[in-house]
């Protein structure tokens, strides 16, 4: 029906004006936040870095298994059950028991109240799967035990990553969990991701260990090399103090030697431990070890009891600042690997925006000229619908603060090209109808009705493609699916409300003309 109620006309106009306003709010500035929204530019347009980090849980798992062995030994000793021949083979704990204890050990490990093999009622699973073969037991992480372990180490890691990124002070970083062993870090507007990359690439495990003088340490020794690679040293495995006991660290200038050092202060427990160790170790060399490399190994000249100290090394001010930052933010539970990086410089981003806008403008102009050439007055109507379609699309993207990417801009241009399809279908149908129907109002009405299912079919198929892209795609491609999908909805609105309103006004006014279309 060509008749539009006043209410409908007014709501169409109001709706269009509201969204067009938000399209324009990208270019004007108001103080009020709600009225001055901006479209969110993707990293490929504003420049910045996208980093996908994967946590390497192997060391954590080994560490946990070793701790588990100690726990099992202690627990069964208290129960006066003999377990022997403990060993760690890959990710499996192996041990043996005496023949008459087999049932007993089995029951303890499979008990839902077990103290050494926690049961998770929500997953209906123990932390470890227990297998026994005669008197030989083997313990493996169960599927859920492993998931829980990975989740907790990921939660820790994400916290540390957030602290490190925040300390560097980039604007609005985006840090998200991905699956159970990945972290996504988006750093918009970052010019040079190298510093953040090297900060995130360090586990920052700090320990203080004495350099061994004779090889008869009760804790055993290990050979570590110096950071600069110049030499190796034999270091006691006994850890005097670790980074966990640090409460603060900052770069300072040592006034005596005039070199940059990192000063740190310790918590109470740490201060006590450090004081005790340094009093007994006067004269020994204390190695400061970061991620398995010795930074420096100064000699202890006097007991350090104040709970603060300095780390010297060949620091520049920058490297001392970075080390202090790493120490303040804490150690990662496991090393992180950067498995995907995408960085776009800010000037390329701007170039992309310029190219995108230019091609949008030209594409738009060509389509508009073509429609006027093809349909004259009705071409103008289709074009008005197209213009409001564009405003609606940009307005909706702005209002919902969707992210606009370069493929997203391509999606807008493509929408411009495909949006006229619905109007073309209608106009062509009307042309056919006018051949048999002399009353233009009836012919126009029939044109709209008869083309409706075709238009819906045609748009739903594109919408399906957009939906699948949205759920399967990532980053910039997702931006394309958003503009394509919303573009279809605004197209249908502009065709069935705006263009139809204009068409009916035009037809009713010119119904006595010979040929309308």
């Amino acid at each position, binding site marked *: 029906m060509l008749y539009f109620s006043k209410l409908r006309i007014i709501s169409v106009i109001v709706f269009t004006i509201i969204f067009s306003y938000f399209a324009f709010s990208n270019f004007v500035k108001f103080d009020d936040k709600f009225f001055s929204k901006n479209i969110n530019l993707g990293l*490929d347009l504003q420049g910045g870095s996208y980093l996908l980090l994967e946590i390497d849980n192997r060391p954590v798992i080994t560490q946990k298994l070793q701790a588990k062995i100690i726990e099992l030994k202690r627990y069964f000793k208290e129960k006066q059950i003999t377990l022997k021949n403990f060993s760690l083979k890959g990710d499996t704990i192996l041990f043996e028991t005496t023949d008459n204890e087999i049932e007993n050990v089995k029951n303890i490990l499979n008990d839902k109240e077990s103290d050494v093999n926690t049961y998770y009622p929500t997953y209906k699973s123990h932390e470890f799967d227990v297998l026994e073969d005669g008197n030989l037991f083997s313990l493996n992480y169960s599927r859920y035990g492993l998931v829980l372990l990975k989740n907790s180490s990921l939660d820790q890691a994400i916290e540390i990553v957030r602290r490190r990124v925040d300390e560097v002070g980039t604007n609005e970083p985006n840090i998200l969990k991905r699956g159970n062993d990945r972290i996504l870090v988006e750093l918009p507007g970052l010019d040079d991701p*190298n510093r953040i*990359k*090297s900060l*995130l690439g360090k586990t920052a495990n700090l320990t203080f260990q004495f350099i061994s003088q004779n090889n008869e340490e009760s804790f055993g020794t290990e050979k570590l090399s110096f950071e600069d690679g110049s030499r190796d040293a034999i270091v006691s495995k006994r850890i005097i103090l670790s980074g966990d006991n640090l409460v603060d660290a900052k770069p300072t200038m040592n006034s005596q030697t005039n070199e940059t050092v990192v000063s740190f202060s310790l918590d109470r427990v740490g201060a006590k431990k450090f004081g005790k160790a340094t009093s007994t170790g006067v004269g020994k060399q204390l190695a400061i070890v970061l991620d398995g490399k010795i930074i420096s190994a100064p000699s202890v000249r006097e007991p350090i009891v104040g709970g603060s100290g300095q780390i010297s090394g060949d620091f520049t001010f920058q490297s001392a600042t970075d080390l202090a930052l790493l120490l303040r933010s804490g150690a990662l539970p496991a090393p992180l*690997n*950067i*498995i*995907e*990086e*995408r*960085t*776009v*410089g800010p000037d*390329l981003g701007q170039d*992309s925006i310029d*190219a*995108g806008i*230019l*091609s*949008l403008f*030209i*594409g*738009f102009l*060509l*389509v508009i000229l*073509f*429609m006027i050439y*093809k349909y004259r007055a009705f071409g103008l109507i289709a074009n008005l619908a197209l213009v409001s379609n564009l405003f609606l699309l940009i307005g909706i993207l702005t209002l919902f603060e969707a992210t606009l990417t*370069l*493929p997203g801009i*391509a999606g807008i*241009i*493509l929408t411009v*090209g*495909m949006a*006229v*399809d619905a109007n*073309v*279908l209608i106009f*062509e149908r009307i042309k*056919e109808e006018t051949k048999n129907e002399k009353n233009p109002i009836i012919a126009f009405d029939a044109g709209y009705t008869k083309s409706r299912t*075709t238009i819906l*079919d*045609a*748009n739903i*198929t*594109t*919408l399906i*493609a957009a939906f*699948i*892209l949205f759920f*399967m*795609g*990532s*980053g*910039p*491609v997702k931006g*394309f699916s958003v503009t*394509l999908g919303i573009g279809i909805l605004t197209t249908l609105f502009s065709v069935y409300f705006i263009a139809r309103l204009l068409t009916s006004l035009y037809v009713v006014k010119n119904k006595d003309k010979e040929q309308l279309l």
Partner: protein
Amino acid sequence: MSNISFNKFYRKFNILSLVLIVISLVFLIFKGLNYGVDFKGGTLIELRTTDKTNNISLIRDSFNQMNLGDVSVKKFGNETDFIVKFEKQNSNDPEFIKNIQNKLSSSIGDVDFRRVENVGPKVSSELLKSGIIAISLSLAAMLLYIWIRFEWQFSLGAILAIFHDVIITLGIFSIFSLEINLSIVAAVLTIVGYSMNDTVVIFDRVRENLRKYSDIKIFDLTNISINETLSRTIITSVTTLLALFSIYLFGGEILKGFSLAMILGVIFGTYSSIYIANPILVALNVSQRTIVKEEKD
């Protein structure tokens, strides 16, 4: 309304399509696709040099000295812009890119890294898998939709038309060694949507005409339907192509592959909805009974 005898050429164009599909498949199987770093893994660097005398071979030489595996260097738009791709991707060394930039600066002068993409082997194989799943899923979804909306003969026609478009578009990418990256997957999915859209418009008309005329054979009926919808088919592909050419020519280097795939897809999509989808209706001997029977059920 136009009155072109499209149906006279059904056979000839079917043979042509068959030949194109066979050629495409041969290339896809034996030559394969030129995957970009998204799907192959490795590193891509878009760089801009300050020194205008730098050329491809000079840049390639400097990269070759760094032990990065297979290196490829291409001009990218401007005289001073280059795209460098190499196999190596180092996730354990956060200084990897920085070191390359330092070495490069000392051999060819100041360079600006405008874009860096570094994709590990695990991520790239995941991206490839999800790309293939996305395309298969969208084909399945289209099949389902059209199966609900039309009779099975129509679904078969539409789906074969889409396969035709996707295979030939990918075939052209294979023949000319054009790069396949994430945005090409987006383009292929959009082609699927567009080709379906085009076919559905003609099929809707065929079905309408089947109800209207019981005495016209499907061979002529498809021709009438194609002609009745022809001006819409042309106008829509022209406006879509105008938009796409505008992206291709003015949208910057990054969108070139994407818009080219779309342009090919729109051209083949328009062609296939006439010359693949309709002959299949003829081959399956669709008649008024086909739709009447369905509607009685």
